[in-house]
């Protein structure tokens, strides 16, 4: 990877094109903040990047234990970045438990910084480590830097008069300072953040600043590090960028949709990991007139949103798999009464409570089919954190245009992961036309638009449009309760036809890479990154491989079946037991093969590469 090496007096600075760094420690060690700070700094410098926060479901498991380990990984580069990285170049481990959990991902000869002060007998016991790894030569294959993080931080802050507990909480900034030195990054962004974050606690501003500066100076002064690295900025498309996580992007996408549609946004939500941040985010946007309703349960969350949609607002609800299960009946109601609604499922590992903080994409079949009777719902899935913004707008547009509930399937990796995002100009945003029925003449609540099959949106308060809707089967056109056999079949087919017709409104698939040949990889959701990265491998030069990444899972793009037939093999990597592959096989009678990982973690690029090699070898 090294491209150039510049020698400073006594030290080397090596220019490389990418690095992956992981901060790990106890849940109380502030690893998420440390990782986010490092991320913001490299983002502002102009690197492309991807992050993978990995934290336990417990708020604070016993300190120093294995279940309490929290980590944050960032991959930054002067080239395009598609994943958070398979293995790490530098690992910062704050205690033995963190070291034990994370060492397997450190590259041979990788940089390993550990907090020497937390490797006492008690710490080792808590981590269920029999022999001190710092002493048994098990770390000989790495560039080990045992640093007395706790002692050095205390020494640096001794004159502030803070208690030890507060002082010790600054040691993550000592480690952050070291990493800034190691990767030649300015501390300015983090200094600014510290000042804003603790603006009412000047002592903490000073403490964190001094800890970070002490870490930086430590590297400079001790000559422990003989080498530092430089990763030049990436050549991103021109524009203004910010760092964005999937949940933030989704929240902003809905605000944008509300502005473009000229309708108030109503979020009904019940807190659930990993979706709660969308509620937090939107609740702050009162200046945009956003209404957030923290409901008494998941069912009230979705039904209040249905009530809001009935009233003429953009009704949305955000949740994760277990929550969407509870919303199921209400989603069927939205299908029956044909009101616009957006349901966001930020998927996590299951079944049941499962792995609340870990990622999975096993709710696809739930989204497509998990309701009683025939209740088709369009399903969209973002592919990157930034894409969540566009998906929110598109889901809203489809919901309103077709008078239909729409599901967005994001996942924990997209929700919490971050990437640089090119901020769109307001003029680039798609229009979201809205038409409320106001004409009482010949008004019929279920008379459909001939093109879209949408029924009119006739909100209460409109003179002359008084009418009744409900969950009972209704007569075509009039909407009156009707149980006649042929009418029921007609209504079931109409609802299905309406959703299927959305295929006319979404782009055809255009495979990336070969548009016919040996193999096509079909994917959806957050697996886009590792697959894109894997296909860049030189190993596949000369092979004709295409990649189709689906953002629309119902309806599927109308040319998908034809495109699949142009390849000898179809491979479908998914973080589930094979859900999309089942749909593709059923729908297109294609001999698609699944590649499945259900570990609560995204695919590694190397795993996808190996699988492609295997499949091609069988040709």
């Amino acid at each position, binding site marked *: 990877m090294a491209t150039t090496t510049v020698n400073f007096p006594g030290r080397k600075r090596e220019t490389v094109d990418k690095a992956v760094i992981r901060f790990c420690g106890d849940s109380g060690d502030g690893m998420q903040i440390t990782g986010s700070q490092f991320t913001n700094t490299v*983002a502002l410098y102009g690197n492309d990047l991807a992050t993978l926060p990995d934290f336990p479901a417990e708020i604070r498991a016993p300190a120093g234990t294995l279940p309490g380990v929290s980590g944050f990984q960032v991959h930054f580069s002067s080239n395009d970045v598609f994943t958070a990285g398979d293995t790490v170049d530098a690992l910062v481990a704050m205690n033995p438990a963190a070291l034990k959990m994370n060492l397997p991902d450190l590259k041979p000869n990788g940089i390993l910084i550990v907090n020497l002060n937390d490797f006492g007998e008690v710490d080792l016991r808590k981590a269920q480590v029999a022999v001190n790894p710092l002493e048994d030569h098990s770390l000989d294959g790495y560039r080990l830097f045992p640093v007395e993080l706790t002692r050095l931080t205390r020494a640096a802050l001794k004159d502030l008069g803070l208690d030890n507990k507060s002082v010790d909480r600054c040691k993550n900034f000592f480690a952050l300072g070291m990493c800034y030195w190691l990767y030649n990054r300015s501390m300015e962004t983090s200094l600014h953040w510290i000042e804003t974050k603790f603006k009412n606690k000047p002592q903490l501003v000073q403490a964190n600043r001094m800890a970070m500066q002490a870490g930086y100076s430590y590297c400079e002064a001790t000559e422990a590090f003989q080498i530092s690295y430089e990763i030049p900025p990436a050549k991103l498309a021109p524009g203004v960028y910010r760092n964005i996580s999937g949940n933030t992007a989704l929240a902003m996408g809905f605000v944008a949709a509300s502005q473009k549609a000229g309708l108030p946004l109503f979020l009904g939500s019940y807190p659930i990991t990993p979706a709660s941040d969308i509620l937090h985010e939107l609740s702050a946007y009162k200046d945009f007139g956003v209404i957030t*309703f923290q409901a008494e349960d998941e069912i009230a969350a979705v039904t209040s949103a249905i*009530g809001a949609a009935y009233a003429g607002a953009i009704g949305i609800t955000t949740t994760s798999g277990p929550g969407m299960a509870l919303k199921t009946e209400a989603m069927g109601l939205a299908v029956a*009464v044909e009101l616009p609604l957006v349901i966001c499922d930020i998927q996590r590992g299951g079944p049941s409570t499962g792995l609340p903080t870990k990622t999975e994409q096993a709710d696809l079949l739930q989204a497509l089919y998990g309701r009683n009777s025939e209740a088709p719902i369009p399903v969209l899935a973002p592919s990157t954190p930034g894409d969540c913004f566009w998906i929110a707008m598109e889901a809203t547009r489809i919901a309103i245009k077709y008078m239909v509930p729409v599901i967005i399937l994001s996942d924990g990796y997209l929700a919490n992961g971050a990437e640089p995002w090119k901020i769109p100009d307001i003029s680039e945003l798609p229009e979201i036309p809205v038409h409320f029925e106001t004409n009482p003449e010949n008004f019929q609540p279920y008379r459909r638009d001939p093109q879209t099959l949408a029924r009119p949106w006739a909100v209460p308060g409109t003179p002359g449009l008084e009418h009744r*809707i*409900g969950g009972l089967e209704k007569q075509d056109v009039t909407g009156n309760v009707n149980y006649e056999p042929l009418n029921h079949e007609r209504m079931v087919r109409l609802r299905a036809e309406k959703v299927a017709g959305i295929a006319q409104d979404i782009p055809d698939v255009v495979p990336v890479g070969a548009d016919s040949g040996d193999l096509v990889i079909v994917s959806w959701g957050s697996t886009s990154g590792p697959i894109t990265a894997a296909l860049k491998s030189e190993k596949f030069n000369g092979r004709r491989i295409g990649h189709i990444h689906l953002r629309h899972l119902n309806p599927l793009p109308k040319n998908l079946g034809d495109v699949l037939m142009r390849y000898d093999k179809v491979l479908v990597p998914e973080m589930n037991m094979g859900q999309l592959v089942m749909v593709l096989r059923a729908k297109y009678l294609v001999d698609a093969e699944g590649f499945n990982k259900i570990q609560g973690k995204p695919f590694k690029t190397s795993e996808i590469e190996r699988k492609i090699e295997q499949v091609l070898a069988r040709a």
Partner: protein
Amino acid sequence: MATETLPVYTKKDFQTDQEIRWCPGCGDYAILSAVQSVFAELGVRRENFVFISGIGCSSRFPYYMKTFGFHTIHGRAPAIATGLKIVRPDLDVWVVTGDGDSLSIGGNHTIHMLRRNVGLKVLLFNNKIYGLTKGQYSPTSEIGKKTKSTPFGTTDRPFNPLSLALGAGATFVARSVDVFQQHLKETLKKAAAHKGSAYVEILQNCNIFNDGAWFDLTEKDARSEHVVQLEQGKPLIFGKNRDKGIRLNGIDLEMVQLGNGITEKDLLVHDESDPRSAYAFLLAQMADRPGFPTPIGVLRGWEDSPRYEDLIANQIREVQAKRGKGDLAKLLRAGDTWEVRA
């Protein structure tokens, strides 16, 4: 629209062309009739009325009202109505529900709607039985009741709906009876006038599965002995000869015979606007006490509590006044940004 004068409505203006599918003799007919009459007099434009219902016999109600109507799913009407009312506080939103819909499957939404004081009018049709599913016991069925699902009698203690509502912080709690048409209409008008959540229990007869559940109160001979009608500022008197009353004894209620030195002056004087709900709670509990009459009328009508939807709207207005209306371009560029040049 606001400048247009209000059309003169009659009961007929609120009747739909839909065939009514309640059993002949069902108490719901009387309630429907009362509501249609009262609506003509409320001074509200027809298009501004919305009926939201859940599931059950009572929940078919919206189909028969020529207003906006939404027949939703079991138990969820308060939540759907809450979403509607937050977005459109100007509308007159009524929830129609039953003892199963509101107190069993929808119990959670009922209590949370009440604690929030959303400006919804709730009509709880209480017939102490599940009608639409053909005769299982409900959360208001008396203990020991033999039904289709309890051939040896229920072992469940029933809810007292009004106690539950008061416990949830309801600001308006009332009770009326399907066949007491005049009283029902007056009660509905009072509920309509209340700003926050109004919870009205209507004792209703299911003549198919639980006929006579309220005969103790509704039969001509029984009525005056078993019902005490609450009137603001008036003492709690009942009985065929108006010779019985309720007075306070310590922190409890006591039934007394007037005469022998006990006069009207010793009796409790009804005050629905008591800010504390303890008094209304005592009244609500009376219905369950052997020998005590069942109070009908407004048990609690306390106006001094803000409506949920107003608090939400005010908060948005306050933030907008302070920060200005949101600017999307600014929002997208909030926080740290950097520019990549061509």
